[in-house]
């Protein structure tokens, strides 16, 4: 029996067809760079497609705000870019305070993020009750970012891949990477005996599964998988534009135009390395918190629950930037359940790194070196300097 492996030579190979990899592929094509993307399943079918759908800058670490602002511009042109609005709405994101201490934290964040023009408004007292009569009694106030919002991840993330394909990227779905080698010049990414992709640049956007690829190139990082518990109600009469969060975390909630409320909070359970589900106690906790937050949900039903598999690093910041050991290797993973909004910005940054070797958006805080033993990082940077 003979098997013919299809060999594809290209400029950039991308592993992972989530919103990071797909938006990077699209950004590269818009720069005229040849790109091949390998996705083991279907693009945008994992965390990028099953997340909460928050498109939120508010509450991010300040170090992420330049990236978030860049992404914010991309979101503004979504239909022109990917051919669908993906139900994206700048409906406002409201972060609720349930104590004076919470309000102080929200105020501190507004001050801290002042340079980024988020337009944050602090709301409390009678104004709060007037603007959101549907809010439960425990809320004492909150912080509104009017231009943050929400979108449908099931539509947006696959649409980036489809747009990249239309722009000339080769998108290879159901094509898992089974091996990768680097000969000093070219990477060869193989999927069994089916296909071999050769490229001088390799972008690692493998999400929760990116650690193995990084480790193969001497950059093991302490990534672990997390599984946010999610649930959705049946459609209810529309009453809430804002996407809601709570200071200190716990629950988040939005109502889609159709009327369903999408809720998240707590942790699901992993079925295996690839699959996860919501968990009974997380669903129960979510229900208690949901009714407390929004008494109108008291008589609603949950019609579906789910979870996903997301990559987390200990500081809950992503790894985004060039490899410290291997020229041509670029990482973009570990977005800690908060990658959806910045995804399109990350794609542009990855494209810049791939083509120009540098990004116009500051990303130093996300360098992989922060997890490498000092000696390895030093040796690598010394070698790079020579």
């Amino acid at each position, binding site marked *: 029996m003979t098997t013919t492996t299809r060999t594809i030579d290209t400029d950039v190979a991308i592993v992972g067809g989530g919103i990071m990899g797909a938006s990077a592929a699209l950004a590269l094509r818009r720069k005229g760079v040849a790109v091949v993307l390998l996705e083991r399943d279907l693009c945008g079918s994992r965390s990028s497609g099953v997340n909460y759908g928050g498109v939120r800058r508010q509450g991010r670490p300040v170090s992420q705000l330049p990236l978030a602002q860049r992404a914010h511009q991309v979101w503004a042109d979504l239909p022109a870019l990917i051919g669908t609005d993906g139900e994206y709405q700048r409906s406002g994101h409201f972060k609720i305070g349930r104590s004076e201490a919470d309000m102080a934290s929200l105020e501190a964040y507004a001050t801290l993020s002042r340079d980024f023009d988020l337009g944050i408004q602090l709301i409390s007292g009678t104004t709060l009750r007037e603007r959101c009569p549907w809010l439960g009694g425990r809320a004492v106030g909150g912080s509104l970012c009017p231009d943050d919002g929400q979108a449908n991840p099931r539509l947006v993330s*696959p649409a980036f891949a489809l747009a990249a394909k239309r722009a000339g990227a080769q998108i290879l779905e159901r094509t898992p990477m089974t091996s990768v080698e680097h000969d000093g010049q070219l990477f060869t990414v193989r999927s069994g005996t089916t296909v071999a992709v050769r490229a001088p640049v390799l972008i690692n956007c493998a999400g929760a599964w990116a650690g193995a690829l990084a480790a193969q190139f001497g950059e093991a990082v302490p990534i672990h998988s997390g599984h946010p518990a999610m649930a959705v109600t049946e459609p209810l009469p529309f009453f809430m534009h804002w996407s809601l969060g709570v200071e200190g975390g716990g629950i988040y909630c939005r109502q889609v135009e159709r009327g369903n409320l999408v809720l998240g909070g707590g942790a699901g359970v992993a079925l295996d390395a690839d699959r996860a*589900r919501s968990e009974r106690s997380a669903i*129960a906790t979510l229900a208690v918190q949901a*009714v407390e937050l929004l008494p109108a949900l008291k008589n609603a*039903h949950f*019609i579906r*629950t789910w979870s996903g598999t997301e990559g987390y690093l200990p500081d809950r910041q992503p790894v985004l930037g060039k490899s410290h050991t291997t020229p041509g290797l670029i990482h973009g993973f570990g977005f800690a359940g908060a990658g959806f909004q910045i995804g399109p910005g990350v794609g542009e940054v990855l494209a810049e790194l791939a083509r120009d070797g540098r990004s116009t958006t500051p990303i130093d805080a996300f360098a992989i070196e922060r997890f490498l033993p000092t000696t390895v990082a030093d040796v690598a940077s010394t070698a790079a300097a020579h």
Partner: protein
Amino acid sequence: MTAPTLQPVIVGAGPAGIRAAQTLAAHGVRPTVIDEAARGGGQIYRRPPAHFARSPQTLYGTEASRATALHSTLDGLAAHIDYQPDSLVWNAQGGQLDVLHSPTQTTRAVPYGQLIVASGATDRVLPVPGWTLPGVYTLGGAQVALKFQGCTIGRNVVLMGTGPLLYLVAYQYAKAGATVAAVLDTARFADQLAALPGMLTQPAVLAKGMYYVGWLRAHGVAVHTGVRPVRVEGETRVNAVVWTDGAAEHTVPCDAVGFGYALRSETQLADLLGCRFAWAPMHRAHLPERDGAGRTSVAGVYLAGDGAGIMGADAAEWAGERAALALLADHGVKVDTARAAELERKPTKLMTFRQGLEHAFPFPTNWADHAPDALVVCRCENITAGELRACARDAGADEMNRLKALTRVGMGRCQGRMCGVAAAEILAQATGKPIDQVGRLRGQAPIKPIPIHLQAQAEASA
């Protein structure tokens, strides 16, 4: 003599579940039996509320003795089982079932050591334009109205689709005093003739079926075979059905419609339990795998009855008993192996007849070809056949979960239990893929919607 390690739970108190419970009890093992209905019997032998006075003969016709036997078996087991009616299993996780008790609006986790899933079936629905009008029911729904509440879905009723239930419901409705305006069978009379040799292996069952058809014709009920429903008409509710015989369209005035294309297995619980599925050509469905005794791919989980493939009530009774014997034997309890072997032989004898049914009432494999783009396939989310086709064409969706993610089909209250079959047929048609290659919707908890406040109560009291 109860083996200390045994902690069996049976889900479903229909023919399979009741026989499984009886068998375990007979071996000194006390099972928990969880059933969604208020009174055991399953869908086929569904019992009316306790104060209703219609006789078993009126309710179950020729099946009265079977129904009565099964009901009295369950009643007689009261002291030997932990029977939990009105209880919906909505999730399975970590060796426990999540069970919603309707009357008290509470949910709790029920641990199990072994599990027999006898989750039964629902109607297999292939939509027709107008099917979302008030007054349109499934055949099973029409029958439940009669059996459970003693009422009909209308005074002047069209019954359509195909399958043995079509004629049974028509007969029952006519007997109950409703006018059956027409029986519209998509199967051709020639199909039924061709299926006769196989059906003759169960002459008694065949005779019953022929009796219903004969009775209907003798009582002036219009029975049309080889037809295709075109649309249900009406403004605020159904007032007519339009059908075609291939040459011309005909209109039958009516005030209610019952329709369906045989049954489909309820497999979500098996899916949540992690059972491996495989395509079953005769059932035209992905079904959880089981051996002849009912063992699944998951140790300690057994399947019995129509929930693992539509084989009917008699086979369900055998399968329930067989699964219970397997459960016992697998855990070191001595069982009658000759009886076990006999129970495995019985369904294989039934198989020729069962396949004959597929010939007599074939699934209309060209249904999707006639489904117009405007047809609502998913009534919860209002998704049309045209939207599904556009998704396949424009976004390249070639698999059910992808289709669901991109179009919302199967994302509503029914979670695809009603629309999943039709959506798969449309997807297969749109992609040109064989029906077995478009996948199946992944099961997700809750199996049926659960009230949020009920969750909250359970949490507060924990």
